[in-house]
């Protein structure tokens, strides 16, 4: 009744190709952006910003990165964590070598390093597909993690073996390091994430996005339509790693402020992969939904017993959270194997004909 495009005629291809052709969707997006840019900064406290919103956005961005590779180009990867690590270490090295350059420029530049390394580790994809490719990307994960531990130059010979982000300011405002206010960091992360998401939405609806999906759906036919498999796959690896690298750099610069090699372990790779699978392969909004489910839900669940007045030990709550999230993952995968994005789509479809479904 409320979500219906009746009466919204498209009279040009421009209008038909818009990202959100339906007016209700545009209003919805505007509301979400309004909440993100105005509502949350006004109401949220430091805890919500640092423990929920900033990591959620960082993970969303890395889920977008992996989604481009796995969901759109069809190349399974388990090296996400390592590529994020490359971004983090590259940004750290860059900002310690050139302390005067704006730190955001450095964070974005670090993406190029991870893109190059991602493209190198993407080379086997020309010959290997599916799970076997995942195993070769696992090599990237282990090799790069080894580099983070064994090459002391990467962490400036720091005795602890970790990278500690120095304080950097921008226009007189402290933006990185532990002293920077959560609000500043939140705004930077939000801005970078939404701009990259928008740029990727544009790429995905054009020629390049189509060429990735062609490779994913039927590589032989794609080759026959004039797609060069090597270039297309490597571009997907590079773009995906670029985004993951930026996300990794943001993770340490604007959220953790210090990171060890183990922050970028295989565990992180799996976490991002689960976000992508649960959110929906081949969907940008799915990346956000998956990240919200995997990251925000456990944090919120921890506070539910307290709010309801139950007096349960912290450890028990932890266990309960694990069990509930695990059960929910299984439940959602049974209900809709294609993830939240598909559920959302089905919901919208139902809403269009509601209340007269026949």
């Amino acid at each position, binding site marked *: 009744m409320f979500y219906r495009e009746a009466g919204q005629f498209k009279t040009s291809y421009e209008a038909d190709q818009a990202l959100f052709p339906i007016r209700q969707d545009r209003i919805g997006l505007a509301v979400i952006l309004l909440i993100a840019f105005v509502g949350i900064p006004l109401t949220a406290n430091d805890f919500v910003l640092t423990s929920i919103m900033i990591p959620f956005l960082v993970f969303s961005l890395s889920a977008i990165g992996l989604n481009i590779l796995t969901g759109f180009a069809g190349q399974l990867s388990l090296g996400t964590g390592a590529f994020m690590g490359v971004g983090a270490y590259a940004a750290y090295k860059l900002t310690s070598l050139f302390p005067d350059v704006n730190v955001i420029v450095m964070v974005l530049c670090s993406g190029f390093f991870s893109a190059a390394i991602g493209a190198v580790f993407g080379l086997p994809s020309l010959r290997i597909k599916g799970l076997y490719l995942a195993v070769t990307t696992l090599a990237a994960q282990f090799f790069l993690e080894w580099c983070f531990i064994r090459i002391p130059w990467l962490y400036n010979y720091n005795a602890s073996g970790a990278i500690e982000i120095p304080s950097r300011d921008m226009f007189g405002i402290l933006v990185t390091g532990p002293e920077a206010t959560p609000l500043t960091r939140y705004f930077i992360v939000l801005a970078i994430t939404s701009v990259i998401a928008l740029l990727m939405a*544009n790429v995905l609806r054009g*020629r390049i996005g189509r060429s990735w999906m*062609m490779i994913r*759906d039927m590589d*032989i036919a*794609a*080759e026959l*339509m*004039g797609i060069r498999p090597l270039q297309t796959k490597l571009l997907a690896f590079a773009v995906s790693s670029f985004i993951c690298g930026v996300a990794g750099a943001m993770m340490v610069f604007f959220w953790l402020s210090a990171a060890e090699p183990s922050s970028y372990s295989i565990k992180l790779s799996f976490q991002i992969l689960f976000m992508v699978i649960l959110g929906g392969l081949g969907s940008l909004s799915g990346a956000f939904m998956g990240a919200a489910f995997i990251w925000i839900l456990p944090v919120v669940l921890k506070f539910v017993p307290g709010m309801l007045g139950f007096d349960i030990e912290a450890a028990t709550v932890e266990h309960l959270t694990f069990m509930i999230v695990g059960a929910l993952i299984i439940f959602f995968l049974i209900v809709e194997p294609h993830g939240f994005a598909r559920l959302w789509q089905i919901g919208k479809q139902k809403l269009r004909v509601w209340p007269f479904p026949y």
Partner: protein
Amino acid sequence: MNAIVSNLAQPVGQPKTAERDLLLRVDNVSLSFGGVKAITNISFDIQKGEIRAIIGPNGAGKTSMLNVINGFYHPQEGTITWRGEVRRKMKPYEAASQGIARTFQNVALFKGMTTLDNIMSGRSLKMHRNFLWQMAWFGPARQEEIEHRRKVEDIIDFLEIQAIRKTPVGKLPYGLQKRVELGRALAMEPELLLLDEPMAGMNLEEKEDMSRFIVDVNQEFGTTIALIEHDMGVVMDLSDRVVVLDYGKKIADGPPEEVQASQAVIDAYLGVSH
């Protein structure tokens, strides 16, 4: 539709005088996989503007022949002359950029994409805006997208599939999928269109529709067509010349009536007691 016709009407290459109308010639091509000889010493040609049928019993090497023509397989012996030039070993995308398009025996559409995107994908070779323009979207990238969308809409009109424009092709019935696949090949504006069993598994009405599209493509756009088909009625009606393969060897070549009368062809199809 005029745009497509005019594009195709442009002269192509500089054919040698002796082969003015030859689009493609296959000379003594042999292809084997290990000990299995798929194609043995086959020669035939395809002339510009004709509908050329390749027929033969199952396993005769018809599809292998198409795969050789568009670069999936590299024959061990023999040469392929394309537009008067002897072709070196080439990759499928090179064949595509030289104007060879193809449909598959078992539909090879991009299942996760809509009909529109599938047909748009046929225009990939003709779109050139790079990554940065694509990221910006507004401006040249969108202009290019819309320009090609117009051509794609022409093809959608031609194939009468307007209603399924935004439907993911995985959800379409088989006959429509075949039609979308033809549309995708047409979007490449090919010079030579290879159709691998375009009518397999269709009912009479769908076959009639598909035949009409094939004839229209040939006559309106001037596209040369090489066609593999098992329905003899269709083959004999549509094609200008027929080449018959059996066990990887050529057993007949000529106009439909001639081929129909050939004893070797009758033997190959009906079997013969030795």
